[in-house]
């Protein structure tokens, strides 16, 4: 069996894991990051993409509010290429809790969070889609952040500094000896191959899966799982982020990005982080609620829903909801008798850097490394291979440079074959195997209104012809891709998206018979 050696093993390729990889690499510490799926397969790829000004938490959790405020200010400066500083509004409509409205600016001031009260008409001039029933509005310093770009740029710089990334490799067990994890056992999800990694320190940065992974090492962590679902609209409705000014509830936030907006979210308790699935009921409740804030949300076309899991890590073993920490949890397992194992879970995308810093500080102490954290001062460099997920980038480049040979494989989002080539290239460079799913993750393929109906088979045949996809990954890959897209489609299938789904099924089942297997 293959054995890899490293100073630090990071498990989990979300914002936290990739953030840690960069932080450690900048301190000169050697590391390997393993991810069971692909970058941002967990909550980091299934969130609002809101860089919180902190205003949302001023009432429920002032400490988190301050933390968000400080990190957001830092990130706007250091990771500017991942952030659109579009600003945000907090608005209340008739029927919302007026006491909450009355306390808001005072609570923000207490947390040092700038807010600017606006007249109702002024707010509707800024954002004409807002409801006529507006009763209060405030301007805040919210921004939108591209989580995918963020994680990719973190891992890219880490890789440039020698960190190794192993996607599609799942941790399946640990071997312990003398109060230490001696080896970590992994299995490749594509090939089934097993191997082990020997590391001096092991970091469990698996978000909602933290309890499962810690469990493999015999350590119990109490986590409650809260599923949140989000909807993507077909067009952009506002210039700014719009938050509902009320105690956290469903469908409070609309985050515009590029030509779409993301609306959500919900909170439902689930038993297993692998059972995450946006439901029809959630979608209906989001649309019903959000329409009070922006009436057009009732009739707009939605192209997809998605869901992520928030891990609520309980510091005590009681599992009582009230003892659940809302900030992040950095768990040093030496207390439970494992000296080289740390879990970091919870928190927010907005605070990922801080979480990475705290984790890396602890690791540095353990390794006796004195190099300081640089992520607080060093800007995050932009990496060219990361660009393709930006909605308008592929078309822009295509229009500028396109050679007659450069066919569009995806017509909805204008993704040409040169983009797919570039992505396959960068995956190969990272020793990965390009799959349709991986291309979809790194580009706009499958994300437009057709949701993979046409670009799915086109990209499959293209990749096969280039010799980049083995035969036995063609149809299974297409099935997997369509199934994944379907998860996000099935709860929003009415009106035009239902027509789209009918075309999808007519083609892929009616004609190809993909449901018949083989």
């Amino acid at each position, binding site marked *: 069996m293959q054995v890899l050696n490293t100073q630090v093993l990071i498990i989990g390729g979300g914002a936290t894991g990739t953030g840690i990889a960069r932080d450690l690499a900048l301190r000169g510490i050697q590391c390997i990051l393993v991810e069971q799926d692909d970058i941002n397969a967990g909550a980091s790829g299934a969130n609002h993409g809101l860089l919180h000004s902190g205003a949302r938490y001023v009432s429920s959790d002032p400490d988190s509010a301050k933390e968000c405020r400080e990190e957001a200010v830092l990130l706007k400066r250091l990771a500017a290429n991942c952030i659109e500083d579009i600003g945000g509004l907090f608005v209340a409509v008739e029927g919302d809790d007026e006491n909450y409205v009355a306390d808001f600016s005072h609570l923000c001031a207490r947390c040092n969070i700038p807010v600017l009260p606006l007249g109702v008409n002024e707010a509707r001039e800024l954002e004409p889609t807002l409801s006529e029933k507006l009763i209060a509005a405030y301007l805040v310093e919210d921004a939108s952040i591209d989580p995918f770009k963020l994680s990719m740029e973190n891992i890219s710089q880490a890789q440039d500094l020698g960190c190794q990334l192993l996607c599609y490799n799942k941790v399946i067990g640990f071997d312990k000896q003398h109060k230490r994890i001696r080896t970590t056992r992994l299995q490749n999800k594509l090939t089934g191959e097993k191997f082990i990694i020997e590391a001096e320190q092991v970091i469990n940065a698996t978000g909602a899966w933290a309890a499962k992974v810690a469990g493999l090492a015999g350590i119990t962590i109490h986590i409650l799982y809260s599923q949140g679902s989000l909807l993507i609209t077909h067009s952009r409705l506002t210039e700014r982020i719009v938050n509902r000014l009320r105690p956290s509830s469903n469908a409070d936030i609309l985050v515009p990005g590029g030509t779409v907006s993301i609306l959500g979210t919900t909170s439902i308790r689930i038993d297993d982080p692998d059972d995450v699935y946006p439901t029809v009921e959630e979608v209906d409740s989001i649309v019903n609620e959000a329409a009070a804030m922006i009436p057009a949300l009732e009739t707009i076309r939605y192209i997809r829903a998605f869901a992520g899991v928030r891990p609520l890590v309980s510091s005590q073993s009681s599992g009582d909801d009230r003892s659940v920490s809302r900030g992040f949890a950095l768990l040093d397992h030496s207390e439970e008798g494992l000296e080289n194992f740390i879990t970091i879970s919870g928190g927010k995308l907005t605070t990922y850097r801080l979480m990475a810093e705290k984790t890396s500080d602890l690791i540095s102490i353990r390794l006796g490394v004195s190099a300081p954290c640089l992520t607080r001062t060093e800007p995050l460099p932009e990496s060219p291979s990361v660009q393709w997920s930006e909605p308008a980038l592929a078309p822009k480049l295509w229009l500028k440079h396109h050679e*007659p040979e450069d066919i569009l494989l995806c017509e909805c989002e204008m993704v040409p074959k040169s983009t797919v080539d570039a992505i396959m290239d960068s995956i190969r460079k990272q020793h990965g195997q390009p799959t349709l799913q991986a291309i979809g993750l790194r580009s706009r393929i499958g994300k437009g209104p057709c949701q993979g109906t046409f670009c799915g088979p086109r990209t499959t045949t*293209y990749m096969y012809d280039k010799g980049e996809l083995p035969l036995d990954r063609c*149809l299974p890959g297409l099935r997997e891709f369509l199934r994944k897209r379907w998860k996000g489609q099935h709860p929003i299938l*009415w009106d035009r998206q*239902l*027509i789209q789904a009918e075309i999808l099924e007519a*083609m892929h089942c009616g004609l190809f018979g993909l*449901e018949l297997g083989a």
Partner: protein
Amino acid sequence: MIDSDVITCDLTVIGAGMAGMAAAVFAADTGLSIVQIGGDSEIGFASGLFDLLGIYPVNDRRQWNDPWAGIESLIRDHSQHPYARLKTEDIQTAFQILLSFLGDGGLPYSRHLNRNVTIMTPMGTLKTTYCVPQTMWSGVEALDKKPSCLFLDIKGLKGFSARLLAARLHDNWPKLRTARISFPGTGAWGEVHPEHLANALIIKQNRKKLAKKILPHVKDARIVGLPAVLGLYQAQKVVAHLTELIGVPVFEIPTMPPSIPGLRLKEVFERGLREKRPHYFTKKRVLEISQRSGDMFEVNIGNQTKGRTILSKGVILATGRFIGGGLHADRRRIRETILDLPVHQPGSRNKWHREDFLDPRGHLVNQAGLEIDDAFRPLDKNGRPAFSSLFAAGSILAHQDWKRTKSGVGIAVATAFGAVKSFVHLCR
């Protein structure tokens, strides 16, 4: 053409998809005067293959060699399935009339009377179907006999890989080779569109140039397969000419949409029906149907600029499902779009679709649609015919899932026949 705002006829056919077109053919055949209205339909997407019944029960993925036996088994279990309201002889007659209409129009189809055939799809899967355009028939036979064969694909034509097709079939068909050619005159283009290729091949000179490109690759191949772009019209002639030029039979392989065999169908229907039904509106939609006085229907059609009224004894509703526009869904329910007829549907939206796209049981939304009586008349809330001479046909009908049972065109054609027959019966 009578330039009046009111047109009177025997039968108004609403819909220009497979069901509407077939209904027009059957009605014209019996000498009825008809008016037809209908815009874009599923034909533009469809492969050109005519399924009758391929798979049943879908959950068991049972494949039928004999479609008639399959239908029998299906209607034994599902007495509400549209096929259950038809005699086998009627479905057979419907196909006979339709196929001879298409043949007369220059678009012959091939089939075994009582046996399904297997054909390769553009993704390299094998599909059970009933009738195929004659230009695809040698491919069906080749799949069976597996002679030394060459698959060609065309540079710049997206979503069609001869290599992928051949690789998927290679285990059972060792004498299968592939090659890629560039289509004559498209050297400088990156992307080629099926319509352009199909159009170009109408011209003899282009066929000769294409044959020249193909010839060096033929070698020992006894037969050559190409994507189905061989002529927008008269594909039969184009294929015969290429066969002659190359010296071995040429056949077409279905492509993904946009599909040329679908466009050919549309063209042949429109040309073949032109004289038999002078009034055909493709740019207008039916806005309203009412029955004010006596037995006559008043069908109001229009677009932004102008409206018209059609007076007819009968109406056939062949407006399709969501793609065609006969059904529409909002977040809460599915409606029939012209008359708001009751639509059989699963209770709430969370039952419309399964969580797994490829769930072998199929999605319940596909069973939604209009309920009818044995005369193909849609029912009202009380389960009685909504009107004495309003009929429905095609994919709008409830209790069928053509995508999974592989019976799209079969249901459209058979029910169109049933609806016309009932109307004729009623008129007598």
